[in-house]
């Protein structure tokens, strides 16, 4: 078998160039001739793609991308793909509403789509089962405590569901909400992984053909102190403090006021100095402090204060409180005459 197989280099190369310089990792691509007795470290440039000149065995070959860190010396398996002459080729892509490109990510309340593309599945009824069908696995794993996916043990992930694919082409899967375990569904955080595996046959065990995961971050929450519903502002506006938890990694959170009772969709007056911009890879905690904001509520009457967070998913109202401004000075008196 003299089939030369494409390496993973293009995607990996981009990852290598970006990450190697910023994180101190060095990357290795190792081609292992199955059943695992000869290994070759593929010399690759940081970007681009190439054919592997090492023809694979009849039993296939596995391509692994490793990230190796210095001090302490440790390796992490970034990606792995098994190729063989009659084993099909698969790709997995996950799309969310967040255009962040480093890792697919979404929020606990938002949908995402998994695109699986299969090539090379045989329709010959006499072909081996491994040539006609593949397995699709869905794993979920929650991040606990202050974990954000960097050091988790992925062997602890839960295999939530599995199925089989036996036709070529695109297979879109739509998920309306994550299934990562968690008691409070608004605070779920973790990752969902979708993997394609070949079926075992007499030449090789079940082997990974493609895999991709999406990170799911919790919804932001808030606690407001300094003003409650029905509050009456007679002099200066009170100082209001809002503690914000789990702000989405790409978000703009702000306070606004408008006249009248609470109504969704109103664009009010921004409270000066009461906004937070987050541009990160993980959720953040922060706070808003409303101080000296009298100028935004100039007239007497009912007003509403809202705390909103704008993310790639839209604008969410985290909290709102209606209050009354009553600055008019009433003098109760009588006028009398001696006549």
């Amino acid at each position, binding site marked *: 078998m003299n089939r030369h197989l494409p390496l993973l280099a293009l995607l990996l190369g981009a990852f290598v160039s970006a990450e190697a310089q910023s994180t101190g990792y*060095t990357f*290795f691509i*190792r081609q292992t001739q199955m059943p695992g*007795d*000869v290994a*070759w*470290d*593929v*010399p690759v440039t940081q970007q681009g793609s190439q054919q592997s000149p*090492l023809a694979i065995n009849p039993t296939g070959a596995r391509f*692994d991308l490793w990230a*190796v*860190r210095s*001090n302490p*010396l*440790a390796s992490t398996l970034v990606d*792995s793909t098994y190729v063989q002459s009659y084993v099909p080729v698969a790709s997995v892509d996950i799309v*969310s*509403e967040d*255009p962040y490109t480093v890792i697919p990510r979404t929020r606990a*309340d938002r949908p995402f*789509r998994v695109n699986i593309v299969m090539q090379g599945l045989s329709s010959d009824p006499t072909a081996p*089962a491994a040539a006609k069908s593949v*397995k*699709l*696995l*869905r*794993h979920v794993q929650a991040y606990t405590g202050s974990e954000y996916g960097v050091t988790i043990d*992925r062997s602890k992930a839960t*295999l939530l*569901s*599995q*199925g*089989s*694919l036996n036709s070529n082409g695109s297979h879109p*899967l*739509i*998920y*309306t*909400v*994550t*299934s990562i375990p968690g008691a*409070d*569904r*608004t605070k779920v955080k973790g990752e969902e992984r979708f993997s394609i*595996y070949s*079926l*075992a046959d007499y030449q090789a065990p*079940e082997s990974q053909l493609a895999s991709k995961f999406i990170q799911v971050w919790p919804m932001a929450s808030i606690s407001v102190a300094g003003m409650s519903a029905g509050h009456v502002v007679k002099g200066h506006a009170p100082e209001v403090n809002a503690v914000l938890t789990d702000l989405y990694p*790409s978000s*703009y959170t*702000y306070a606004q006021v408008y006249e009248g009772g609470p109504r*969704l*969709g109103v*664009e009010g007056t921004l409270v000066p100095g009461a*906004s937070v911009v987050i541009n990160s890879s993980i959720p953040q905690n922060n706070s808003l402090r409303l101080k000296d904001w009298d100028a935004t509520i100039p007239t007497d009457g009912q007003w509403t204060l809202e705390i909103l967070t704008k*993310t*790639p998913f*839209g604008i*969410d109202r985290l909290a709102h409180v209606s209050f009354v401004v009553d600055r008019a000075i009433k003098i109760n008196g009588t006028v009398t005459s001696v006549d």
Partner: protein
Amino acid sequence: MIRFPLSSAMRTNFLLFAIATASVLPVSAQDLAEGQALQMRDAATHDQLSQSLRMAQQNDPIRNIGPAIGQVEEDPSLALAGRDLVKDSIILCFRGNLTLLPKRSVLHLPESLKSRFEAADDAAVVPWATFLQNNRGWIRTLEVSREQAMGEAPLPAEARAAFETSTSVIVATFQGGPISVKPYVQPEIAPTQSDETSSTAAP
């Protein structure tokens, strides 16, 4: 005063999902100032999401594409866990730099250089090509064929004789990349017809 659209769409429908995806915008204060009309809503509650989860779990699309076949009781991803490139490699380390090679790729190791096969605590990991370039004084490479690496063809006798007396480390390479080399095993010669005839004819 601008009113934002109050659609409650963007749920399960694929088309609406695609539209929502297409309408995703980078988030910045400037966007807000420009009055981008994003959907505004109250944040979803735990009860709402629990209901959504129940519906989603009843309609997991993976279960709809076809029943799992093969070794469904085993999780094949566990085979990937526990693998370690460092443990599966030979370490070369010298003057603060370190690289990894596949096992059985070092064809000759002089006694005097054995200390360079242990990792120093503060050594920086570098690619093989970089390490070789910086250490050509004591590392030589022997380019091998695929057949030689697979143990299907012997290494040239003159090459073996040369590196067995070498004072350098000899690393097998395939197109520049280090490669493990299986020991050559001479194939058994099948007996010929005449041999079988003569043997059976023997008394």
